């Protein structure tokens, strides 16, 4: 009896493990295989063409639009996120203030991505009268990735930097000086990778930008008040409207490639930094 039970457990564990491994490799393999078959240089360098738009041509403005969106939201969320983390870990002494800030971060991190799109759409576009633009979408995505980035940086600081701080404080050095000369120089790579991972999460999400600024066809934006193309939104439209399967495969490949490179770069940097320490 016990023997059967053990074999059963072993069998299910192997089966589920195998299933997960297969699913993982299938997802990457499927996109990479079909993408590699369908992608051309013309697709990367041309703008969308054809009827309906996107059926032919390429996605160049979507690539630049995605990069701009990532840079803009990363800048905003990175700045607010790292300052909030510094304040919380090194300066804030009041338990209640700390609690309020942490609770809001936690709450925001658990909300649905479309909620940010919805609130961004109503407040920015309708109440403040902003146009559908890179700026409106950038703010919306920044709000969405803000908790993600802040949580990562707080964890980073809480892990082992208080020791450094205490040693320096004992030597009578001011807090701002320690932050500028010791903490930030030794952590700036981890802060940057935290922000980049947040950006990777942000540019992959189509929900917050579909209402606030992403459009089906636009040139590379010249200013933040113009609408823009986003790769993830473009892929969503190509698939859900059934415009072009070939271009959908190629777009998915590009999006996945950008995100994989960002992810791999971050993890690599963090890994080597850990080794260097």
């Amino acid at each position, binding site marked *: 009896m016990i023997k059967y039970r*053990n074999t059963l*457990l072993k069998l*299910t*564990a*192997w089966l*589920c*493990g195998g299933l*997960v*491994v297969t*699913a*993982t*490799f299938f*997802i*990457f393999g499927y*996109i990479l295989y079909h993408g590699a078959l369908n992608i051309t240089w013309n697709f990367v360098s041309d703008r969308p063409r054809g009827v309906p738009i996107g059926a032919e041509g390429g996605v160049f403005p979507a690539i630049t639009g995605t990069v701009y969106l990532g840079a803009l939201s990363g800048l905003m969320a990175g*700045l*607010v996120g790292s*300052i*909030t983390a*510094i*304040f919380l870990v090194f*300066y*804030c002494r009041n338990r209640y203030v700390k609690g*309020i*800030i942490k609770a*809001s971060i*936690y*709450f*925001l991190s*658990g*909300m*649905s*991505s*479309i*909620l940010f*799109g*919805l*609130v961004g*759409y*109503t*407040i920015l576009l*309708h109440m403040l009268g902003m146009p559908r633009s890179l700026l409106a979408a950038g703010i919306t995505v920044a709000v969405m990735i803000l908790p993600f980035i802040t949580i990562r940086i707080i964890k980073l600081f809480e892990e082992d930097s208080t020791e450094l701080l205490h040693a320096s404080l004992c030597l009578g050095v*001011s*807090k*701002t000086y320690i932050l500028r000369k010791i903490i930030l120089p030794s952590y700036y790579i981890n802060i940057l990778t935290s922000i980049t991972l947040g950006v*990777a*999460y942000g540019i*992959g*999400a*189509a*929900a917050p930008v579909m209402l606030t600024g992403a459009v089906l066809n636009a040139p590379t934006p010249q200013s933040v008040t113009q609408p823009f193309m986003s790769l993830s*939104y473009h*892929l*969503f439209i190509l*698939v*859900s409207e059934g415009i072009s399967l070939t271009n959908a495969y190629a777009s*998915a490949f590009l*999006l996945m490639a950008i*995100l*994989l490179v960002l992810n791999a770069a971050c993890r690599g940097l963090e890994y080597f930094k850990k080794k260097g320490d």
Partner: protein
Amino acid sequence: MKEKTALCLFAAVSFVIPAIFIVILVHVIYQTIPAATGLGMLLFDTSGVWRPLGQTPSFSILPVISATMYVAFLAVAIAAPIGGMAAIFLNYYAGRRLTKLVLAFVDLLAGVPSVIYGFIGLVVVVRNLERIFNMSAGESILAAALVLSVMLLPYIISTYSESIEKAKNKYDTASRALGVSAEYSVLKVIIPITKRGAAAAVISAFGRASSETIAVMMVIGNAPIFPRLLGRGQTISGLTALEIGSAEIGSVHASAIYAANLMLMLTLSVILLITYFLRRKLLSEYDKI
């Protein structure tokens, strides 16, 4: 002096996040008022008719709420046992090198955007469902649940694997010394003492599942009717993404959409609170170890 200025500046910036939180909360509640006063309990009308543009408009958000819960529940029911067993597999049966490789890939899988899951779901899952069940259109609750369950796997595996690792570190030597089999120690030691961690993982996976937008929207068929396993459906997020653009802000239509989102927010908040307290209890338990 410099110290003071920096502190004030940092404190000011740090209140951006609480401010955003309050603005979102107040805004959503405020936007729900027209529907709450104009419709009242008609929002939860059991006839389940969502017809915002008809001659006699009707705004029951009950179908989208039940579809959201149904899909999320189904997805967790599929993903939790598979993910849990896979975590056990990684900790007890796979070699160290394979475990590291799989966990790295699973980590990457968590970074794949939902639009790609939706895309693969549409060309692989939906097509195959059409073939297997002989359906005219494979977009269904089942398709959405299957796609979602794959999206939940990385999360469940990594969180549950962490719990197992902690438990294993504590009890593995003792189990080995007593000479019991790996299976015995999994069934009698690991699974019982990781049950709180497992509960936290499952509950927050449910939260993630119910708030997913794009991937679900691409494979569920988007019809605001009561959910059936092989029928079309629509989730709260899908309804929002598809209809808010054409609804006039401040109208009953937009307000009803906000009401549905408020319900989702409440559900997610409850889930966040439960997982918070579960995790806190877990941490104090591990401190004892």
